[in-house]
C-alpha cells in the first residue's frame, strides 16, 4: 500500500533516529570524562615548562589570550598563562607559534620567570621530519633543555643563534632549519616579556571559549 519511496524514507528516518540515540547516549556517558582528560592533559603539558617555579592555584585558570597583531612570534592568537605565589607574580607561560620551521608552524611553550630567565621550553605541536627536526621534542632529545636559565643578556643578543651561525646554542644533527625557528621564537618571546611584563600580570583572565 505504502509507495516504495515513502517506505524507503521511513526506514531511513527510523535508522537515523536509532543511530542518533546511540551517539547521544555515548556522548552523555563520556562528556565528563573527556572534559576532565582534556583539563588534565593541558595542565600536564604546561607544568614542565615552569621548571621548579613554586606557584599556587590552577595555572589553566589564569589564561590570557592575546589577539593578533601582537609582537609575540606567529600571526595567530597567543596564549599566556600566569603563575602566582600568594598573589605575587612568579612566572608566565607563553604558548606561541614559531614560523619558519621545515614543515609548517611549530607551537611552542616558553616559560619565563619574573627575573626574565627561561624556566623551560616545550614543543606543543609540530610536523617536523621524524628522526631529524623532531629532536626539538623533549621526548625525543634533550635539545630544549639548553634554554633553561637563559635570558636576554645570557647569552648576549648577537649569540642567540645556533653555533653554526656564530651563536651559543647547539644544533640538531641533520637539522638546522627547525632549531633556528625555535630559537628565534624564544628570543622574541623574551623581548615581549621584557617590554610588557607589568601589564601581563595585571590583566584579568580571558574567559574560556565555549
Amino acid at each position, binding site marked *: 500500500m505504502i509507495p516504495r519511496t515513502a517506505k*524507503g524514507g521511513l*526506514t*531511513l528516518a527510523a*535508522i537515523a533516529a536509532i*543511530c*542518533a540515540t546511540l551517539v547521544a547516549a555515548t556522548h552523555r556517558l*563520556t562528556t565528563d*570524562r573527556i572534559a576532565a*582528560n582534556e583539563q588534565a592533559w593541558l595542565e600536564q603539558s604546561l607544568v614542565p615548562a615552569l621548571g621548579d617555579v613554586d606557584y599556587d592555584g590552577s595555572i589553566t585558570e589564569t589564561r590570557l589570550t592575546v589577539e593578533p597583531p601582537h609582537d609575540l612570534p606567529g600571526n595567530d592568537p597567543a596564549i599566556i598563562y600566569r603563575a602566582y605565589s600568594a598573589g605575587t607574580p612568579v612566572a608566565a607561560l607563553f604558548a606561541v607559534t614559531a614560523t619558519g620551521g621545515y614543515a609548517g608552524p611549530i607551537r611552542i611553550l616558553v616559560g619565563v620567570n619574573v627575573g626574565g630567565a627561561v624556566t623551560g621550553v616545550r614543543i606543543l605541536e609540530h610536523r617536523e621530519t621524524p628522526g631529524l627536526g623532531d629532536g626539538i621534542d623533549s621526548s625525543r632529545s634533550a635539545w630544549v633543555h639548553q634554554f633553561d636559565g637563559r635570558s636576554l643578556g645570557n647569552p648576549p643578543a648577537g649569540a642567540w643563534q645556533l653555533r653554526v651561525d656564530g651563536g651559543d646554542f647547539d644544533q640538531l644533527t641533520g637539522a638546522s632549519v627547525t632549531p633556528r625557528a625555535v630559537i628565534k621564537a624564544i628570543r622574541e618571546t623574551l623581548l615581549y616579556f621584557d617590554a610588557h611584563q607589568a601589564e601581563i600580570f595585571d590583566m584579568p583572565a580571558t574567559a574560556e571559549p565555549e
Partner: protein
Amino acid sequence: MIAGQFIERMQTGLWRENPGLVQLLGLCPLLAVTSTFVNGLGLGIATLLVLTCSNVLVSATRRWILAEIRVPIYVLIIASLVTCTELIFKAWFPALDRSLGIFIPLIVTNCAIVARAELFASRNGIVASLFDGLGMGAGFALLLMAIGFFRELVGKGSLFAEFDKLVGGEPLAGLVLADGGWLLAVLPPGAFFSLALAVALKNYLDGNRKPARQT
C-alpha cells in the same frame, strides 16, 4: 556447525581474503598510523570494533532495507559507530586518541568496512556476519600490528614503546634494542615498502603451498 563456520570465517579474514593483504582495502590508515606497534594495535582494535558492530547491525536490519537506499544506511550506521568509538577512545584512552588523531574519525572512510557490509553482512545472517566482522577485523588489526612491529623495530630499534598510551600511567620506553634505526622505515615510504614486503611474503607462502597440495 557454528564452530566450523567461525573457523572458516576467521581463516578467510585472517589469511585467504585478508582486507589489507589481499583486498588491499583501508590502506590510508594502514600506511599512516603503523609507525609503532602500539598505534597499530590501537587503530586495529578500533577498526575491529566498528567492523564487527556494523556487520551485525547491517545484517540485523537487512530485511527492511530497500536496495536503493542501502548505501546511505550503511554510511549512517558506520558513521554513528565511529563517532561512538571516538568518544570512547577520548574518554578512556586519551593518549592513544591523541597519537592516532584524525585516523579514528577516518575509520568511517575505511572501505574495508563498507565492503563487508555490502558483500557479506547484507546477504548473510547475524551470526555469520558477526564472525565475518571478527575475522576481517582481526585480519586487519593483525596486519596493522605486524607492520607497526616491523617499522618500529627497523626504524627506531625499539619494540612495544609507549604502551602507556593503552594502559595509562607512567611513560614506558618498551624494549630498546638499539639507539635509533633506519629512519626510512618510520617515514611514509617505509610504510609502502613494509606493506609490499608483507604482500610479497604472503604470496610466497601461498605459492609454496599450492604445488605441495597438487602432488
